[in-house]
């Protein structure tokens, strides 16, 4: 897609986001909120996967930490939502720091395996620490509270939708600014050729650690939105299946594009939603579709769209 076309698409997408809650039915709107939340999750994964070349197989752990952080804060103190969002993102970032410190010692597949192992560890903690997390039952009844002290209630579904939409759009802009900054350029240099980056006199590990923490914080933010939206946090959201689905969303949409994973999450979840209304064994078809995408559409939806536009231009 050329730059001009992208610029033309952005206002259209924003307008659609603004109008949709007045068009969609209640059930459809809640699906859209889901799509946006998981889109944010996939986008955060793209920061490390697409821009730095570090494939994390444990990204769901930070989504889950964000969900637990925000759920606990909301249940016990009932502060305005932004406080809970901050708490969730912060918790995810703080836990990601030591994990990242260990994991970035390794590269490639070893990095993936290490992040998977740490995620399973965090999952086990969430599962076993019954006093704090409620074990396998999780934490239910997370309130939606308000936008600020004495501010409007977020229990109304459209208000909550707009909160999610604004946060996702702002996060997209922040991530875009990040990958276009000198810091982001350094990340892409590491992705392209880490040996060369190091031999040019820079240490790559601090960069990898910082972006790992940032990505975890954004995943935590998505999780922190998820908990009040669904009203619960459970170990399920930390499970490796979600980590794997995150990778699938990124690939489906287009790795290293930020917008792609957002779209990929939507495509992925919509396909799942549609398939699951026809058959309870939708996983077979999701798996098959995904295998086909990996083989035939390596650039994902965005890559395919780009090629299509370029061919016509």
């Amino acid at each position, binding site marked *: 897609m050329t730059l001009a076309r992208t610029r033309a698409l952005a206002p259209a997408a924003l307008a659609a986001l603004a109008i949709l809650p007045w068009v969609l039915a209640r059930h459809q709107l809640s699906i859209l909120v889901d799509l946006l939340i998981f889109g944010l999750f996939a986008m955060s994964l793209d920061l490390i996967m697409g821009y730095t070349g570090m494939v994390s197989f444990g990204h769901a752990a930070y989504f889950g930490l964000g969900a637990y952080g925000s759920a606990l804060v909301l249940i016990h103190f009932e502060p305005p939502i932004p406080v809970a969002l901050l708490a969730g993102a912060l918790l995810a970032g703080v836990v990601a720091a030591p994990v990242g410190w260990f994991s970035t010692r390794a590269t*490639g597949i070893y990095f993936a*395996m290490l992040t998977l*192992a740490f995620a399973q560890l965090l999952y086990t*903690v969430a599962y076993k620490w019954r006093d704090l997390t409620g074990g396998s039952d999780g934490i239910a009844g997370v309130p939606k509270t308000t936008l600020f002290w004495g501010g409007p209630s977020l229990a109304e579904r459209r208000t909550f939708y707009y909160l999610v939409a604004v946060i996702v759009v702002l996060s997209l802009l922040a991530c875009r600014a990040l990958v276009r900054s000198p810091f982001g350029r350094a990340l892409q240099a590491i992705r392209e050729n880490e040996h060369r980056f190091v031999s040019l006199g820079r240490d790559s590990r601090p960069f990898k650690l910082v972006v790992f923490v940032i990505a975890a914080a954004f995943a935590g933010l998505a999780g922190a939105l998820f908990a009040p939206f669904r009203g619960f946090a459970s170990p399920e959201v930390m499970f490796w299946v979600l980590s794997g689905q995150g990778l699938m969303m990124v690939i489906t949409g287009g790795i290293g594009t930020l917008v792609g994973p957002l779209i990929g999450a939507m495509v992925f979840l919509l396909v799942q939603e549609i398939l699951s209304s026809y058959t309870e064994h939708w996983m077979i078809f999701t798996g098959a579709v995904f295998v086909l995408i990996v083989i035939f559409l390596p650039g994902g939806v965005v890559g395919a769209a780009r090629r299509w536009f370029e061919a016509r231009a």
Partner: protein
Amino acid sequence: MAFVAEQLLNALALAALLFLVSAGLSLVFGILRVVNFAHGVFYMLGAYLAFTAVTVSGQFWLSLLLVPPVVGIVGALLEASTLRFIYRRPPIYQLLLTFGLALILEESVHVLYGPTAKGVDPPALLQGSVQVLGAAYPRYRLFLVVLGVAVGVAVWLFLTRTRAGLVVRAVAQNSEMADCLGADVPRVRTLVFGAACALAGLGGAAAAPMTTAYLGMGVGVIVDAFVVVVIGGLGSFGGSMAGSLIVGAAQTWGAFYLPETAMVIMYAVMGGILIFRPWGLFGQEE
């Protein structure tokens, strides 16, 4: 003394199962440079097929003989029909492809066998227990130890003492050079992938009498197997042996002394080893 012997044997039995899975995982990585996420599902497939074979024929030994080749053929066919086309891509694509395959296979087993676990009876010869250093120990677990050692020795002999094993090692070391020297690399890849799946299937068939065949057993074992190969070093046969013993020991003793945190111990051990050797005990820097 009896207690120590019992714990030691438990650790060895667990290590034997882990070894059957992780050896294939490591072998596939060495030859194909693919981390096969679907590997655990082949383990599960082995367990379910063993259930079918034992139910139909009533012969445990026959099922142990028949199941591995069947699982191996399924694996080889999948490799030749999907993975083969994307070896030139960055490794993440292959990992994700096998993730998709894992979903398909897991759900297919669900469709075919339903959601309930399937028990398999061990053969009469292996039922009951024997006296080991004053402790009554289940025969079946001893059999697992023997099986693990036998397979380990067989694979090691194959890799180091036969011509085919030599070709496999050559492809692992430098596939382009092996190709130039006349090795049929695509065929080696397919065969190794199939053989690794057969090993996982054997592990599953052997595990079924102890753990039953259940959905999700593949994922459980693949995560443990990842820890094993990360500890031992991906692509190293000796590494997966050492890693299996370490993880088997960590889980067995952890489950006894610190039942709440048995999982944590396994990861703590892995973290500790990786601080000193980021590529595992026997692994080589990428």
